[in-house]
Each structure stands twice: as C-alpha cells, then as structure tokens.
C-alpha cells in the first residue's frame, strides 16, 4: 500500500489533536508515516502508532527552534525524498501552511490548504474545502506532482487504529536558507486551562454587546461551565477587550465546533466566515434583527447580562 507522510504538530512530544485527525484521514489514502521534528519522539511515537502510523521518522536539532520554518521544510523534504509518498499531509496551522507551501515549491507539486475532508480516488486524494466565507463547498485535486494538502482542525474525529509506530531516525542536512530568519526570543502563550480555540468541541464567543473587557469574565464563566474555549468577534478584539489570538472570523481563527454560542455578536459576514460551519449554533442578542439569528438553531432575543448568568447557573446545576 502507498505511504502517506503526516507532519506531526506537537508540544514537547505531546501530540496535538489535529495530528490525530490527520492520521485518521491519512488512512483513507494509504499507510501513514509520521514525521516528528523536535524532542521526545519516543513518547510521541506511542501515540502516533495508536492512531495508525506505521513508521515515525524523527529528527531533533536546535535549528528547529532557533530559526523560522525553513529547517522544518528541509526535514520534511528529507522525509519526502526517503519515502516517496503518495501525498503529504500537514495540519493547517499558520506555520503548517508555510511549511507545506515551501515544500510544494521545492518538489514542484500542487498545494491545497484548509481541507475539511479527504477522500481517495483513482486520480489521487480529493480535498473538500469550505470557501467564500463558507458559502461554497468545493472538491479539488492536485493535478501535478505529489499532493501537498493542509487540513483544518476538527475536520474529523480521531479514531485509533493500532499500528507499529516504528521509530526511525531521519537524517536531515540543513541548506543555506535554513538559518535565514533567526527566532531571537519566544514567549509561550500563557495557558488559560481552556481548550484550544480551533480544536474545541464547544466555543463561547463574545462580541460588541459584551461592552467592555471587564465583562468578559461573564463569557469565560459560561465557557468554563460548558468546558468550552472562548472566542471574540473582531469588534471586541479591535476594542481591546480580548486578545487577538481569540478572534473568530475572516481575519482571525476559523472554528467548526459541535456547538457555537454567540453572545452579543450581530453576525456580520466577517464573523460568519469564521464560524458558520459549526454543527449547532445558538445566539443571545438583544437585537431581534441581528443577522446571527439567520444562522441559529436556537436563539434568545434578550439582554446577555441577564440570560448568560442564568444559563451559566443552570448549566452548573444540571452538571451537578
């Protein structure tokens, strides 16, 4: 069976959920071969094997952390040369897309980004994408070279499928370009203890109606009761009420959770682009004419400062 390269996104060896989703999708196309760059490959290999990786090609070098993107491209290309895969799959993070883009140029292959599903066909993988602010669903194929495809978080549910996960050392030679952009300092994002926004099963977002940074704890409280991530509309972020890393929308993150709770968000196209593929959408807004109500499965026209606390209490009570 053909092999499919899967680029592993991990934090110090802890494999992130989008990679498990990738392995699950990769199995539709062939035998997944994982590429792990950085420390703690042994720990990662166990998890990667559980989710179907037949082999885990691993390399560790200071360059991966000290310089931007290119050392990882060199390593992924080394894996590509070693494996001659049927496709290369990379998580659709900002960095993942850049790695994939440079690899595609180097190997002269087409690239598809932000796929939400993959299927095998006689002519290679078919990628499903959600485009034009999720107004259209497209099916696309790479027509030249080895398909390089980045896949969005939450595209599928990770499913285990035990495989060998055999750890092999990947030999990487860094090119001249590898040290072009130095990372002079790195500050990890402070952990909030909440799920990652793009990976969360439930997202609770606040918008203009939240009316100030001081009121965002109300949104956080509901999120915590539901075990959700916190999002914010562009209006709320531009006003400085919540960090940009939480922005949901066209110029922020695109989320596709099981449940999206929009509070005080009117639902402008800018915001809809980032959330309208959510499975279930509920909204609380005082304006009954707000466009968000066109999208909802359930909506409450009312004052969020009354509805949200009551909802939070009720969720807590029911969860016991």
């Amino acid at each position, binding site marked *: 069976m053909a092999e499919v390269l899967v680029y592993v996104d991990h934090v110090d060896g802890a494999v992130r959920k989008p990679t498990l989703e990738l392995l699950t999708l990769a199995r539709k196309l062939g035998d997944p071969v994982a590429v792990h760059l950085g420390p703690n490959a042994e720990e990662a290999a166990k998890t990667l094997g559980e989710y179907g990786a037949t082999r885990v090609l691993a390399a560790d070098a200071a360059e991966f952390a000290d310089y931007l993107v290119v050392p990882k491209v060199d390593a992924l290309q080394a894996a590509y040369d070693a494996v001659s895969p049927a496709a290369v799959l990379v998580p659709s993070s*900002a960095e993942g897309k850049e790695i994939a883009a440079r690899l595609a140029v180097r190997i002269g292959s087409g690239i598809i980004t932000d796929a939400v599903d993959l299927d095998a066909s006689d002519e290679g993988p078919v990628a499903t994408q959600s485009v034009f602010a999720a107004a259209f669903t497209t099916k696309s*194929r790479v027509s030249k070279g080895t398909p390089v495809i980045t896949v969005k978080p939450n595209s599928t549910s990770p499913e285990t499928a035990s495989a060998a996960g055999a750890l092999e050392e990947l030999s990487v030679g860094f090119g001249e370009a590898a040290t072009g952009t130095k990372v002079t300092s790195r500050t990890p994002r402070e952990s909030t203890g909440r799920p990652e926004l793009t990976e969360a099963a439930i997202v609770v977002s606040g918008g203009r109606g939240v009316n100030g940074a001081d009121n965002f704890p109300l949104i956080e409280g509901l999120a915590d009761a539901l075990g959700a991530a916190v999002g914010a509309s562009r209006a709320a972020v531009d006003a400085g009420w919540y960090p940009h890393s939480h922005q949901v929308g066209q110029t922020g993150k695109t989320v596709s959770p099981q449940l999206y709770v929009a509070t005080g968000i009117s639902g402008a196209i800018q915001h809809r682009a980032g959330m309208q593929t959510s499975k279930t959408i509920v909204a*609380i807004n005082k304006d009954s004419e707000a466009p968000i109500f066109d999208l909802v*499965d359930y909506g409450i026209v009312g004052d969020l400062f009354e509805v949200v606390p*009551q909802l939070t209490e009720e969720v807590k009570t029911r969860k016991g």
Partner: protein
Amino acid sequence: MSLRIVVCVKYVPDATGDRHFAEDLTTDRESVDGLLSELDEYAVEQALQIADEADSEDGAEITVLTVGPEDAKDALRKALSMGADKAVHVEDDDLHGTDALGTSHVLAKAIEKTGYDLVVCGMASTDGTMGVLPAMLAERLGVPQATLLSEVSVENGTVTGRRDGDAATEQLSAQLPAVVSVTDQSGEARYPSFKGIMAAKKKPVESLDLDDLDIDADEVGLDGAWTKVEDAAERPPRSAGTVVKDEGDGGKQLAEYLAGQKFI
C-alpha cells in the same frame, strides 16, 4: 542607495458581496465589485511606515505590484493614493485561472525584474485565503521570510518583527533582502487623502506581460495549474431555527435546549 520596497497586492471580489464561481470554476470576478484586498492595505501601510523611517539618505521607494486582469489597476491606484511611489501590473490573458504556485512564480519574476530589498505582503488574500504566497515567494527568491508579523521595523539592513504564532509569540530577525508578511494587527491602514488621490493619477504604472517576464504560457493559467477545482456547490442555507424572546427565563430555556442536544 534607497531602500527598494515591493508590496504585493491582490484585487479581489468584495468579501461582503455575494461571491460565486464562474463556469470554469475559477473565482467569478464579474458579478461582485472588486477592490484592493483589505488584508493588503495593512501591507501598504507598513511599507509606508518603513519608508518614512528609512535611515539611508536617499530614503525609500515603494513599488506596488499586482497580477490580475485590467480592473486590478483599481487596487494599484488605491495603493498609490495611499502613498506608494509607482506600480507594476502583470496582465496577460494567459494568466486566467493561475493557482498559488503559478502566481508565486509570476510574482517572483516580476519582483526580480523590478529590483528589491524588501518584499511586503498581507497575511492572506480575502478571496483565496490560503496565506501561502509570502512563504512561496521567499522560497523562490531564495531570501529569508519573516512572516505573519504584527510589528515590523527595518534598520541597518535588518528586518525585525513580532510574530504571534499559534502557541507562542516570537521575535524574528533577518538580513535584507527578505520577504515579510504583516497581519491585520500591525496597525490600521490610512485612508487616501484627496491630495493622495490626485497625485496617484500621475504616478507611473508599468504593464508587463508573460513575454516580458520570460514565462511560457503553459507554466500558468487554468491548464498549467498544479491544482484543479472539480466541483463547487453552494452551501445549503441553514434551516431556520427557533428564536424566542427572553421573558425572564431565557437562560433556562437555552439550557433546556442544550440539554436536549446532549451538550450538558
């Protein structure tokens, strides 16, 4: 020698319009008005700020570059009216349907022909939204990439900036020549002044075609593309949900709904 800045911009269908695909499954650029991609305005703005602070005695010169049909000149005019010095428009009928890999090839050739110390891009286009072009350009030009910056500055031949990544905030540093991309957090883009709009009309716009860039027609266009859209279907509208007015127990009603859906 002055700092030569090339800003890559895209002319896109208005993202607030009702966007569609054309019959050949390329982006329909007829039915919705086009404009300079909002995310590229941030690139023009940062280029202008870098030029203002350029430390060489000769200052800086900003060339704004686009690949696109005749109407794409509107995007160049907007950038010129914001303050860019001159424009380059790559226009050729054979370019219709070119994908990201092909576009990066054309842009890289045009950038090399124009001459550059710094290439500035937006973080993504608002139509394709791939966000891969800056990295592709750096790869093709063989220069460093300092991308997705929310702060950027250039001093003594070095570009530095802050990249707010998924898991960490990083400070980057690279020698010129380099490719940078800037995010929508880099600072609000200025509005063109009346004076700027008038001045833009007299600024030079150079037109280049594929021959000028030594590119064969079969390397670009829909037939030359490395990817193929096989099907595009309009997403069915979401079926109408239940909307109720809060009569004092709205929170409880919503909790009841969520429990019914097994979210609680």
